[in-house]
């Protein structure tokens, strides 16, 4: 069977370029220029899928994005699987492999269809909820089996070999849709000097002109398309994006376009000959003006069995014949409400096949096309409609009757016509989806019998979407819109362009018909489908309104009308019209549902772009990173930073465990000397005559008397009185301070300072600058720190001259440095700051000299143990946004008597922040020194209390201390400071209960003698 339905000549396919493809395991041939859908039709494939709910046989209905049935699973390999590809939008390529998304064991003999056939009448909307509602606990079980029978397509189970990326654009005019209106709009805007982007979702630009019977300037309309595209392509200010769907229309004319770059060529970009290139690209466009030229979707009529393969929309028939040289069948019946559908009959007849009849719902149609059809000998049956399609796997006949639209009844004798194809047209629905994304509601247009876009600031609808269906009008409306958009974007002297001549044609008025009456009621008649993809029938909508669903949004959710990947492209207006009829209201009174992005499904890859794998998130490195890597560090993520976590050594050919490495590093600091890369700490340079005053207002403690050369620890609260950050700030000069922040808080603190300066105290003369990356910071700490430092610096390290909480400048390892005597370990410590470009040489010099002192690099884990042993907190670990300085026992760092109120002061005098039973920071000593309590573990006072137990606090930090030779923890505990010496309990999820004694937060050197040496 080779392309039995291919017409011998014509079409826009390349017959010299044959292609092979596989559908449902069967090999077929097609041509370059085919879509998967046109190639399937050419090969006489009637059934392309099984329907979602009833598993009915389904064929191709349309030729574009609105296709509801021919939704396929694409991909030759597991890692190239793409679900939910519309065959009508998939360019054919050699080796293409596709399968139906539904149907088991296959689409020809589907087991589920018997369920649909037998149970169809017993599966009304809400069937699953109504049937499987009890017992409620079984729903999860039911759902598993229901889901097996449902769904469209499947996700690949292997990772995608392709890449996807993003590109940002700005333009004066974005034209969406390259049909006649879009091309005319792009041309007039571009000639006017505008930066223009023109996108179109089809394989080829040109829209309806590619299969039009109309001529332009007396020749085929395709000629004008080619000329126009050539002119546009030659302009530097124009970007043409074919195969690109405008999928989302967001605020302020921000539009996302999804470009398929190699998907039409091969399974992967590599297979297509473009290795390393993006398979699809998401364009993020910010347009000053948007011309919406998305055209229309033809509306099918709703009649019985209108879902049988062989039922199509009339325009698609023309498209397949004229553009793809494919005959969708042999004997055609058309059922229509308007003149436009007559073109399909003329095209069909000219292709040499039989038009059985045109069934027109209007009593006396008389447009030019009607006359032309009659003159060609085509039988026209007026005042009638196809009320039912006959057939099993494919249409074999049409039942036709005269109808009374107003009373919704058939009025005459039913005539049976033999045919294999029924093409229907209920008029056109402008493609308003994108305009609706912005939140605007489409407006009903009684003359057009359709919704047109509501008003969107900066958007101009043009052509079909604005209700201009005649070619001449479409072109001139497009040209007008393009010119207006260029002018609105700020351009002057935008001339009108000369448009090609069209031949005048008189079209008669259309009539309003959506659902066709049947001799039986909707419930008793064979199914009349409204939404083919979601298997929503006219009787389902009737039932929904009978059950009390009056809002169209409720009807939608009850019946699934317009759900899924389809977004109601073919069915929505018909569904609303049926709901309106049942409710006795007009269509505008019923209104529309809301269309949401994306217009057609978009692959996750395109949304993610290159923000994946190693580029998923920035990794921030310090100037010493290479050394850490070379010395075997394990890294910890702190914010975006990669910080050395610990430095495992190889001991007897085996890598140290984390526990062993941290114990070794801790003891090295307590007994000899260790070194930490502290470069990630936030650093803010503060200059100005009011710098000191400003510090006094953002910190809780006092800064008035801090002298140059001195350093002070400060606490920063939010206005709710809760601790937000801490750190040391050094007085460099009377008007010059260096603030340090936590690693994670650096950006937030700088923003906080700017916020208060700019909004509350702009009169204070002070400037802030981040110098986090400029300085590299190394902490040399331990009893031998001074000895080591004395070998590498010219700074006088005498303990009287360079005291704890002093800073000095000088040279370290030949590099200018600021050295701060601050300690986060409780040991003698020097924090060396050097310009980051020179950090590595200083670090390496320290190690050259440090060898004899066994200088030990340590990471964040050891830092945590050492600081916790001293009861020093980490904001964000020991605090959680609900902890005040008083809760931490840091009254000493709160200056209630400062002359100017500081941020958070007022909140600290609220009854809640002053009550006595707040959780307070305490130390915990587990009874079993080998038990390291879990951080986050809840504390109770009575271990035998029944659940739910009274929880009085939780563990915030917990470690094993090699110095204490046992475990210890910090915790917040209600009334904690009054519970010193008491025993508390920590019940664990595994049933064990740990015991711990409440102790001071300072476990080592409570007087601070070790850091003050």
């Amino acid at each position, binding site marked *: 069977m080779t392309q039995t339905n291919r017409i011998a000549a014509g079409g826009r396919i390349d017959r010299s370029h044959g292609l092979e493809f596989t559908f449902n395991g069967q090999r077929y041939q097609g041509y370059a220029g085919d879509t998967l859908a046109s190639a399937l039709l050419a090969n006489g494939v009637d059934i392309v899928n099984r329907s979602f709910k009833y598993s009915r046989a389904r064929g191709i209905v349309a030729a574009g994005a609105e296709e509801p049935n021919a939704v396929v699973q694409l991909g030759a390999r597991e890692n190239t699987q793409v679900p939910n590809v519309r065959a009508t939008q998939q360019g054919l390529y050699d080796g293409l492999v596709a399968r139906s998304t539904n149907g088991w064991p296959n689409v020809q003999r589907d087991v589920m269809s018997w369920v649909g056939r037998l149970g169809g009448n017993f599966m009304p909307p809400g069937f699953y909820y109504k049937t499987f509602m009890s017992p409620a606990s079984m729903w999860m079980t039911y759902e598993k089996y229901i889901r097996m029978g449902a769904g469209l397509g499947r996700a690949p189970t292997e990772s995608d070999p392709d890449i996807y990326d993003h590109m940002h654009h*700005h333009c004066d005019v974005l034209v969406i849709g390259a049909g006649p209106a879009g091309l005319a709009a792009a041309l007039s805007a571009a000639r006017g000097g505008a930066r223009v982007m023109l996108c179109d979702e089809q394989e080829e630009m040109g829209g309806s002109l590619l299969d039009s019977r109309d001529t332009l300037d007396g020749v085929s309309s395709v000629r004008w398309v080619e000329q126009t595209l050539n002119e546009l392509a030659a302009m530097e200010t124009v970007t043409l994006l074919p195969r690109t769907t405008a999928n989302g229309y967001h605020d302020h004319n921000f539009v996302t376009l999804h470009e398929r770059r190699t998907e039409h060529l091969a399974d992967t970009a590599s297979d297509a000959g473009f290795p390393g290139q993006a398979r699809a690209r998401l364009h993020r466009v910010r347009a000053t003006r948007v011309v919406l030229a998305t055209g229309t979707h033809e509306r099918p009529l709703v009649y019985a069995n209108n879902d049988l393969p062989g039922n199509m929309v009339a325009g698609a028939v023309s498209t397949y014949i004229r553009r793809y040289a494919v005959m969708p069948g042999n004997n055609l019946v058309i059922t229509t409400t308007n003149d436009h559908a007559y073109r399909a009959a003329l095209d069909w007849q000219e292709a040499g096949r039989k038009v059985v009849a045109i069934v027109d719902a209007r009593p006396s149609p008389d447009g030019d096309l009607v006359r032309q059809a009659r003159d060609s000998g085509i039988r026209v049956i007026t005042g009638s409609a196809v009320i039912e399609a006959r057939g099993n796997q494919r249409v074999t006949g049409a039942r036709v009757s005269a109808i009374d639209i107003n009373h919704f009844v058939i009025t005459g004798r039913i005539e049976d016509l033999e045919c294999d194809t029924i093409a229907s047209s209920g008029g056109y629905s402008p493609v308003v989806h994108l305009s609706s994304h912005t939140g605007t509601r489409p407006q009903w247009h009684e003359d057009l019998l359709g919704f047109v876009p509501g008003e969107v600031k900066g958007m101009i609808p043009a052509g079909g979407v604005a209700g201009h269906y005649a070619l001449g009008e479409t072109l001139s409306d497009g040209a007008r819109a393009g010119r207006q958009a260029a002018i609105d974007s700020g351009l002057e002297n935008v001339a009108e362009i000369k448009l090609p001549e069209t031949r005048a044609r008189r079209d008669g008025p259309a009539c309003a018909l959506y659902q066709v009456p049947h001799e039986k009621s909707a419930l008793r008649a064979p199914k009349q489908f409204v939404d083919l993809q979601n298997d929503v029938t006219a009787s389902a909508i009737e039932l929904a309104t009978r059950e009390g669903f009056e809002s169209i949004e409720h009807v939608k959710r009850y019946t699934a009308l317009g759900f899924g990947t389809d977004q109601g492209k073919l069915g929505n207006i018909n569904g609303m019209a049926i709901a309106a009829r049942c409710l006795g209201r007009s269509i505008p009174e019923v209104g529309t549902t809301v269309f949401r992005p994306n217009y057609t499904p978009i692959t996750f890859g395109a949304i993610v772009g290159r*923000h994946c794998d190693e580029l998923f998130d920035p990794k921030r490195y310090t100037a010493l990173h290479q050394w850490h890597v070379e010395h075997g560090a394990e890294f910890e993520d702190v914010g975006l930073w990669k910080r050395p976590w610990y430095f495992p050594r190889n001991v007897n050919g085996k890598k140290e465990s984390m526990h062993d490495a941290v114990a070794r590093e801790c003891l090295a600091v307590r007994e000899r000397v260790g070194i930490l890369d502290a470069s990630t700490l936030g650093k803010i340079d503060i200059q100005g005559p009011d710098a000191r005053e400003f510090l006094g207002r953002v910190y809780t403690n006092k800064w008035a008397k801090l002298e140059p050369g001195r350093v002070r620890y400060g606490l920063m609260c939010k206005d709710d009185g809760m601790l937000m950050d801490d750190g040391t700030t050094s007085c460099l*000069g009377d008007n010059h301070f260096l603030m340090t922040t936590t690693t994670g808080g650096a950006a937030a603190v700088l923003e906080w300072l700017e916020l208060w300066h700019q909004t509350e105290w702009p009169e204070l003369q002070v*400037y802030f600058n981040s*110098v986090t990356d400029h300085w590299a910071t190394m902490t040399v700490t331990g009893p031998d720190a001074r000895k080591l430092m004395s070998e590498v610096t010219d700074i006088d390290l005498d303990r009287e001259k360079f005291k704890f909480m002093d800073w000095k400048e000088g*040279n370290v390892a030949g590099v*200018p440095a600021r050295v701060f005597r601050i300690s986060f370990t409780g040991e003698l410590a020097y924090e060396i700051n050097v310009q980051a470009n020179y950090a590595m040489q200083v670090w390496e010099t320290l190690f050259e000299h440090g060898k004899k002192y066994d200088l030990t690099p340590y990471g964040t884990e050891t830092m945590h143990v050492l600081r916790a042993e001293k009861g020093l907190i980490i904001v964000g670990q020991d605090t959680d946004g609900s902890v005040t300085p008083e809760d931490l026992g840091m009254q000493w760092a709160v200056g209630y008597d400062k002359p100017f109120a500081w941020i958070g002061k007022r909140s600290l005098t609220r009854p809640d922040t002053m009550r006595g039973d707040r959780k307070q920071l305490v130390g915990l000593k587990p009874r079993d020194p080998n038990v390291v309590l879990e951080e986050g573990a809840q504390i109770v006072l009575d271990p035998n209390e029944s659940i739910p137990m009274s929880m009085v606090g939780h563990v915030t930090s917990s470690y094993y201390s090699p110095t204490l030779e046992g475990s210890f923890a910090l915790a917040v505990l209600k009334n904690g400071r009054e519970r010193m010496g008491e025993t508390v309990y920590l019940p664990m999820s595994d049933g064990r209960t740990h015991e711990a004694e409440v102790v001071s937060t300072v476990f080592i050197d409570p007087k601070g003698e070790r850091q003050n040496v």
Partner: protein
Amino acid sequence: MSDVKEFETRPADTSRAESPLTWSLHEQKSLPHASNPGIILSEKPFLGHLVVRGGAIVLDEAVREVMDMALPAKPHALVSDDSGERTIQWLSPDEWLIIVPGGEEFALEQKLRQSLGQSHFSIVNVSGGQTVLSLKGKWAREVLMKSISYDVHPQAFPVGKGVSTVFAKATVILRRAEEDGWELVIRRSFADYCYRWLLDASSEYGVSVTR
């Protein structure tokens, strides 16, 4: 402002200095080298970077006196001296970035401070905290369009313009100092991320990295 601690951070011997991109280039073993590169990427390391904040009028006077250049007053403006080696870029209404050949920054800071006297201003040396990447080649604009949401079309981004903007998931200062050359001022800690991102975005056009 007086009572500010000036500090020369540059050692006498700078032979062992490491620029922010040192780690990335070291990791790469051999530098990318396309036969017909559409993108040429290079670092301009070890330059002097000063962030100057204050009122435009007093700063303009000082800059004219000390550097013989006018302070760019218009938003997003970037000016350079005749040699092209010294640039001043508008960053925000009270903030400018001065970039000079490495080693000049401390003397320049001192002279500016002297000239500015008791006015309210700040000068901060950030030379170790950031570096300049040069992006050239036929496809430079496309690479930027993949990375930056700001409009880089020549009509919107002429020579002599610079902006602070979002770059992928980081921020950069983007500037166009010459017709076919872009500069990105990137923070030290984000340098590796920005460099990898640029290499990735450039790969389809062919990329060479030069020292």
